[in-house]
């Protein structure tokens, strides 16, 4: 299984990610998820989220999840990008791509990864209030 895990303050370059996708001729399904920062966090207007990671552990925990994905489904590729630092409202903080022979396993693996990530991968976010972040 191809794996790519990027944890970085850089903007997520979706176009570059789409262009670097590899889909073998026996792969029929690509599921892509994009998580974007919403303008409200627990009821309050925000301007951005500030993401922090314990990076080596985050990378290791992502890899443990990918080990599980590899055991459970015939996935050919998983690519993951998580942003760090300030991510403005409307910008993506998370990008996940799963390539599989059929759509059922691609959807299942993508959802598993995101659900488990939110339980085990040491990344945290802090709201940045609108007033202190001029647009």
């Amino acid at each position: 299984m191809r794996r790519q895990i990027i944890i970085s303050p850089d903007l997520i370059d979706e176009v570059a990610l789409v262009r670097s996708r590899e889909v073998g001729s026996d792969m029929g399904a690509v599921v892509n998820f994009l998580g974007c920062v919403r303008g409200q966090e627990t009821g309050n207007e925000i301007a951005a989220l500030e993401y922090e990671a314990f990076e080596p552990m985050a990378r290791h925990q992502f890899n443990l999840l990918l080990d599980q994905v590899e055991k459970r489904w015939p996935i050919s590729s998983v690519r993951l990008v998580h942003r760090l630092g300030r991510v403005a409202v409307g910008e993506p903080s998370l990008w996940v791509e799963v390539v599989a022979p059929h759509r059922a396993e691609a959807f299942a693996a993508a959802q598993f990864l995101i659900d488990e990530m939110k339980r085990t991968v040491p990344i945290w976010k802090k709201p940045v209030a609108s007033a202190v972040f001029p647009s």
Partner: protein
Amino acid sequence: MSVHVTFYSFFRDLTGVAETTAALPPDSRLSDLQEQLFARYPQLRPMQKSMLLAVGVDYQKPDFLLRDQDQVALFPPVQGG
């Protein structure tokens, strides 16, 4: 023995430090380290229930047996995505 401790997310705000060290008797467990840190930073104690503990890059339970020079991390529930 001595272990290195890192705080993440708002645990860093609660303690006022990102890192510290702790001296512990041999055969100490993560729970012994927690008690020592709660004594030093009482504002951490109410977080105990949801606190996550890691040694190196793996999660561990409070009964985990520490070794000299272990790298311990304490943090609140994760919130990626």
